[in-house]
């Protein structure tokens, strides 16, 4: 299969490969990741000088603990959005998994079993999302919007609107509150998932097919790839990640609530888009997503330290999303289309 077909004695017409051409190609594909890295740096400097407590070890660790759930789901969401889809149901899944974890433990379940069960439930939710959107061609936007409502309703029904405490002596509480070598467990988990996500996205055939799907799904199908399986898998990734995030949120607060994760999907999507992933699919960056999540975490944390009303944070987050999409489409895409 791999003996090249030669047409006629080939004169060496190959153009010279210049270092510069390759460098330009590389740089332009990563221009937005570099940009968001710059934004992060500027924010760090601004808050370091304006808020005394910002650069304390405690505050930084606290910031990382708080942003971990967003980062974990945003890494998975990068796959969905790059494949040309979107998952709006992640916030509801955070609420459902946290609530059910607390309820199950309160009902006397073994905490480990309860943990495994809610994560599997997350995977099952992803299966439903993927089945409708990848196998039946219903737009992911509508499918996951419907699921947002169904799952949030289920969580509210299961808890009757009350939050359920998780006893502090169950081991799962360490997931949200514990530290390993002084670093919060959620931050370690987020780091591990981000590295794994980067590896799968950039180095494996699956990651390649996710990009191909967002780029030209029909081309991928004609190349013999099981496109629908890829399309379903990405939703299993986000929902599973959301279930894990729900566990982290609930165990950090030692309480499961059906009101957790409201507008969480917006925060996650903002982090992803901010990192340079195209909402139209085909272009994505895990490194960018991690940086995007950090930017959101730093802004939220820094503004609280500066005693800015938390209501502004929500306004700001929406504004950032809008601006990121705007820049993505108007400016950065221009770099990417022609090199």
């Amino acid at each position: 299969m791999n003996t090249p077909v030669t047409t006629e004695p080939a004169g060496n017409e190959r153009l010279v490969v210049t270092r510069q051409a390759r460098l330009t190609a590389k740089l332009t594909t990563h221009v937005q990741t570099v940009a968001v890295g710059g934004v992060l740096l500027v924010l760090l400097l601004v808050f370091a000088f304006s808020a005394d407590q910002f650069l304390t070890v405690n505050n930084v660790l606290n910031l990382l603990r708080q942003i971990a759930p967003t980062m974990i789901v945003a890494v998975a969401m990068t796959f969905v959005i790059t494949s040309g889809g979107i998952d709006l149901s992640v916030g509801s899944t955070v609420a459902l998994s946290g609530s059910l974890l607390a309820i199950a433990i309160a009902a006397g379940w073994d905490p480990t079993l309860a943990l495994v069960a809610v994560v599997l439930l997350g995977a099952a939710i992803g299966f439903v999302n993927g089945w409708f959107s990848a196998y039946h061609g219903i737009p992911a936007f509508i499918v996951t919007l419907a699921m947002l409502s169904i799952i949030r309703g289920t969580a509210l029904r299961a808890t009757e609107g009350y939050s359920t405490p998780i006893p502090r002596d169950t081991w799962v509480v360490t997931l949200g509150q514990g530290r390993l070598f002084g670093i919060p467990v959620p931050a370690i988990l987020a780091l591990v998932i981000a590295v794994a996500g980067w590896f799968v996205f950039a180095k494996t055939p699956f990651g390649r097919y996710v990009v191909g799907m967002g780029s030209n799904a029909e081309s991928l199908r004609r190349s013999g790839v099981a496109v629908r399986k890829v399309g379903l898998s990405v939703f299993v990734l986000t929902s599973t990640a959301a279930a894990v995030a729900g566990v982290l949120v609930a165990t950090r607060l030692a309480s499961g609530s059906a009101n957790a994760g409201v507008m969480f999907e917006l925060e996650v999507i903002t982090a992803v888009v901010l990192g340079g992933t195209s909402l139209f699919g085909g272009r994505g960056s895990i490194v960018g997503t991690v940086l995007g999540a950090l930017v959101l975490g730093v802004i939220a944390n820094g503004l609280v330290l500066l005693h800015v009303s938390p209501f502004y944070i929500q306004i700001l987050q929406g504004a950032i999303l809008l601006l990121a999409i705007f820049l993505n489409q108007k400016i950065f895409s221009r770099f990417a289309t022609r090199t």
Partner: protein
Amino acid sequence: MSQRESTTDRIVMRDIRKRYGMVDALRGVTLRLGPGEVVGLVGDNAAGKSTLMKILAGAVVPDSGEILVDGAPATYTSPREAHELGIEMVYQDLALCDDIDVAGNLFLGREPRTAGGLMLDERAMHAQAREHLDALRIRIPLTDLPVRALSGGQRQAVAIARAVTFGPRVLIMDEPTAALAVSEVRTVLELIRTVARRGVSVILITHRLQDLFEVCDRLCVMYEGTLRADLDAHTTSLEALVEEIVGRGHAA
């Protein structure tokens, strides 16, 4: 007359039908193809040429009809299964992933892997891509450029290279030269002759009729979802072919 089947036929498509809603794209088409044979498939726009070939390539599933490969009935429903039988196609709409680089597009779905199949072997992919492109005399300096950065002709060349790279036994080319410069067209025609000499069966769809006479053994004319004529390319004149295509001398 030349549609008479013989035991050595590589491909036989029998009574293929396909409807798209109200459009009868194919109304019972029968086509045969021998080893090493080059068949030109011509006809008006919307005659059904691309649909017929997508069916042969597994990208479209026919409503009815059967396909024999090397005399054995083949019931494939996906491009992957067609690939496994050695059937490759250059699509009219190219079907490249713009965001994936040149090497990635060449090997899409068949990437060289390392680490027990877990990882892409980028190094091998780029090295092999370079080798294949050079052998085909395709001038694309960087195999790690995303395909969207290429010119229309270069993109077409990548699509052709992709179909040829995996050693097909049947090569279908749906207007492969539409975006190519004169010298590149010559290269593609030369390529067709080369692979045909090695026993690859080729189906070429093109509206450049003069090209057909250079490389084809037979010329099949389609008209509104049917196969209207099957001509010997060596004895047919350009005028006769044009008459068949536009349909003079036939009751409509």
